[in-house]
Structure formats: C-alpha cells, structure tokens
C-alpha cells in the first residue's frame, strides 16, 4: 500500500506543480502570450469538462458547445440586461448549464453509442438555432459585449476588473485549477473507477451491480457544469457573448483539444488546447486557410499518436499518469 500512497503523492505534486508553473509564467510572458494563455486556460477548462465524459466515461458527444454557451449566456445575459454582481452572474451560468445538462441527460442517455452521438448533435444544433431565433435578446451571431463596469468584482473592499490583464490571467488560472483538480479528485474517487469501468465494458459493470445510467447521468451533468463554468468564465473575462460559441465548431474544438492532448488524461486538455491555439495562431500568420494546416497536423497526430500526446507519453513512459 505504501507504493500506492507514494504514487498518489506524486500525482498530486505533479498537478500542483503545473498550477504553480502557470502562476509563475505570468511574470515572464510578454503581453501577447500572457493574454493568449488566459484564453487557453479557459478553453482548457472547457476541454476538462468534455474529457470527463469522453475520456473517463467513454461517451462521445458532439454537442458540448451548448453547455459552454449555456454557461456563457447564463452569466452574460443577466450582466448585460440587469444589474447583477459578477459572482451572481457566474452562479447563474453554472445553474443554466446544470439545468440544461440534467434535462438533456435524462433524455439523451436513453440512447447509447452512435445514437447518443447524434442526439447530442441534434440538441446542440437546436440550442444554437434558438440563440439565433431569439436574436432580439441574444443579439444572435453578432453577439454583445459586456461593459467593463459589469465585469468588475468588489470583494472585501478590493475592486477587481476583469479587463485588467493580471486579474484576467489569475481568474482564468483559478477557474482552470478548480476544474482540473476537481476532475483529478473525481477520476481518482470510487466514482471515477466506475466511470472507467463503464467506458471499458458497460454490460459487465451492470452485472457488478452498478446502475450505469445514474453514473452516466452524473458524469454528463458534472461535465456540463464544468463546460458551463468555462463558458461563464469566458463571458466574464473576455467580455464577449455570441452564438458562435454555441455552434458545432466549438463542440468539435472540445473534441480536438481532448484528442490532441490525450483522451482520459487529466492534463491532456491543457496541452491540447494550448497546442491547438498556437497551431491556429502560427498557421494564421502564413495562410488564410489555417484550418487546413490544423487538419493536416491532426491527421499526422492520429496516425502516429492516436492516444494524443499525454496518452502516448503515459503508454510509453509514465504509466502512473492519471
């Protein structure tokens, strides 16, 4: 048992070290990359939520943009139209994604496999079209910008504006740390063990006495709430709320970030989101068809590293990586 305990300590130390490194680099990075990294951390939080469902429970969704957007609109709309505080808005974002994930899960989890995938796609499409249909409220794909005043948090007499790069960066880091450590704790808990069992062999898991439907529902709801937290965080930190974030493109992004970094690895989403972000960024300097470059890189990756970067690393050298 001592080896298991040593392993656990090493895992916790690694993840805390990653957070510490992210905290430290903000003092070194030039402004441009500083801002990028804040964005990457929010997207990585989104991917952490996605990965919980795909990587650990084995449910493939192409509709997670709706949870991200639910969090985004849940926080953004009250901030835009009403005089609510930043924390209340964030809470409303979480609530919106929770409600959506729960009601969606109760329906969609009756299906499995390809059928589940299609249901996620259809629901997300309906959600996306709804954001366009109600464009008098949501302002559709044009979206709306949150004022700096709406994004100012007063906490214990200290006034913090999310327009300030330092506040923005550290808020993104806090969001990502919570999502990532929450994910780590979940997948290392007995519940995480059952999720992995469902991923590996659901009928067998049922014959071990588990109501797999409830476990899948729990995974879906937690996944949706984490994605919603990322969406709410995005609205608060980057001030923009628009339909684009509910589109299929963002569902696919979540999938790609996760695949690139390594499905079923806790740190994979950060690696995947970071790489992808800079891939698009660098490719965009050379060509307007940057998505083609992204596609080629992904093809090569699937050919040589089908488990993603951290997944391959784990398979070869680091079997203890969670």
């Amino acid at each position, binding site marked *: *048992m001592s080896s*298991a305990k040593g392993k656990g300590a090493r895992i916790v130390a690694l993840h805390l070290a990653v957070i510490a490194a992210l905290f430290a680099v903000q003092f070194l990075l030039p402004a441009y990359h500083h801002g990028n990294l804040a964005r990457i951390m929010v997207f990585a939080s989104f991917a952490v939520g996605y990965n919980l469902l795909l990587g650990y429970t084995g449910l493939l969704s192409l509709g997670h943009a709706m949870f991200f957007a639910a969090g985004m609109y849940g926080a953004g709309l009250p901030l835009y139209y009403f005089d609510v505080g930043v924390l209340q808005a964030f809470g409303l974002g979480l609530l919106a994604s929770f409600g959506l994930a729960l009601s969606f899960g109760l329906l969609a989890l009756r299906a499995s496999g390809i059928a589940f995938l299609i249901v996620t796609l259809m629901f997300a499409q309906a959600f996306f079209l709804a954001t366009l249909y109600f464009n008098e409220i949501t302002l559709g794909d044009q979206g709306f910008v949150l004022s700096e005043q709406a994004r100012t948090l007063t906490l214990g007499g200290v006034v913090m504006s999310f327009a300030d790069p330092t506040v923005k960066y550290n808020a993104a880091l806090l969001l990502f740390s919570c999502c990532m450590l929450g994910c780590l704790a979940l997948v290392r*808990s*007995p*519940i995480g*063990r*059952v999720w*992995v*069992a469902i991923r*590996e*062999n659901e*009928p*067998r*898991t*049922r*014959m*071990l*006495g*588990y*109501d*797999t439907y*409830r*476990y899948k529902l*729990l995974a879906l709801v937690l996944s949706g709430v984490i994605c919603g937290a990322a969406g709410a965080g995005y609205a608060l930190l980057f001030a923009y709320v628009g339909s684009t974030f509910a589109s299929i493109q963002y569902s696919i992004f979540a999938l790609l970030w996760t695949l690139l970094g390594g499905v079923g690895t806790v740190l994979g989403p950060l690696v995947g989101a970071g790489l992808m972000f800079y891939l698009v960024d660098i490719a965009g300097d050379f060509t307007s068809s940057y998505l083609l470059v992204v596609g080629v890189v992904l093809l090569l990756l699937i050919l040589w590293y089908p488990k993603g970067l951290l997944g391959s690393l784990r398979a070869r050298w680091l079997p203890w990586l969670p």
Partner: protein
Amino acid sequence: MAALTLLETSAISKRFGGLQAVDAVDFRLEEGEIRAIIGPNGAGKTTLVSLISGRLAPSSGVITFKGEDITRLKSYQRVGRGIVYTFQVTSIFRNLSCYENVALAAQRSLAGGLGGGLFGSERAIAERVEAAIHRVNLTDRLDLLAGELAYGHQRLLEVAMGLALDPKLLILDEPTQGLSQGEIAAFCDLIRQLAKSATILIIEHNMPVVLELAERITVMDRGAIIAEGAPDEIERNPLVQSAYLGTGNA
C-alpha cells in the same frame, strides 16, 4: 438437509421469437447447497441463470429470492441482494489492473449507492480486494493488467470479482472451460471453500467436476427440467442417459 429455500422460480419462461428457450420451469435452490445444472447445448441452462441473475427479463413467471419477489428487479439491483453471476465467456476489464477489477466489485458491496461511491473508503476497498485476491491465489499479480493474465488466471480473477461482491448466491457459468487438469483440481477446492459462505449454482459440461462438486444435479433438456437429484440418482436415470449422457455431448 431441511434447509431454507433461497431461490425459487415458478413457471418461469423465456421465448426468443419462435424459440421457447426456457419453458415454464419450476426450480428451487436450498440455502448453502452446491447445485449443478447440466444438459446438452441449447438446453436452456444459460438462459435460466440469466433469468435468475436478471441479465434477461422473463416472458412470464415469477422468481423469488429469500421469499421476496425479484422478478421485476434489474440485474444491478439483484447484485445488491447478493445474486452474483460470473460469465461463461471470461468478461473482465482487460485494460484495467487486477486490483482495479476486483476493487470495482469490492466497492459495490461496501458502498452501494452513488454517495458511497464518492466518499467510500479506499482502505476498506483495498482490504476486501486483498482478501478476495488471496483466496484465489493471485496476490502476486495484483498490479498486472487483467488482459495480460493467463487464461486460467483470468477465470480465477473473475471468481475473485464474484467473491468481492460478497454473494449469497454465486452463479458460475462453465467455470472450468479451458482450464488444465491441474487448474481444475485447484478450482474444485476453491469452490468447496466458497460453498461455506455462499450457495453455489454451477453450469458445467465437465462431468467429473459435476460429480465431484455437486450435492444435487438438475438436468435440463429443450428448455425444461427433466430430472433432479443426487449425483448417483442422476447417473442411473434412463431419461438423462438418453438425453444427455448417452449422446456424448459432455
């Protein structure tokens, strides 16, 4: 042995399209016995135990366990009552370690619901895993991936998973299939050990194993029970000889 009835099926039937796989079977199991079900291929043995374990829903009939009607309970709820099924085709989590395989079973019997799943104690789980693994003699393979085990050891792992669920009724579907002679002897010893704490229902084609282990034998043919009794009675039964022993299916 005037023991208590642990399990009883009344006129249980299962129809697959035009095939009556199990036809109005009345089956009774006493607490603490080792019972074997034998019969030719397609006799309905696996279907019957699937109905008992809840993997299949019956077309009609009633199943009671410890006096309670469990016909409508889902398979995972029956596991909670202590009905544990180990698969005919080895069904382990090949990509997980032996420890994780058994831990899944252990944590189910310790914690139960979702809440327990979140707050269950890893130490209690580990203790139960080690006890179960020790009983099947796989302690030195705890950290190996289940898929890397030799076939005979995979069967043992499957039994350990059953054990960790703390069964009242352990159903073993052709457990000695594919095992060597030496492994079979060890397996029989293990089953006798297990029978001290659980009722054992075993489907088996290997007649020497059946005759050695079973206290009573139920013979099925074409979806029905055609004979039941002590091993020596069954061996002498002419119906059984023509349906099963004589046809050379064993």
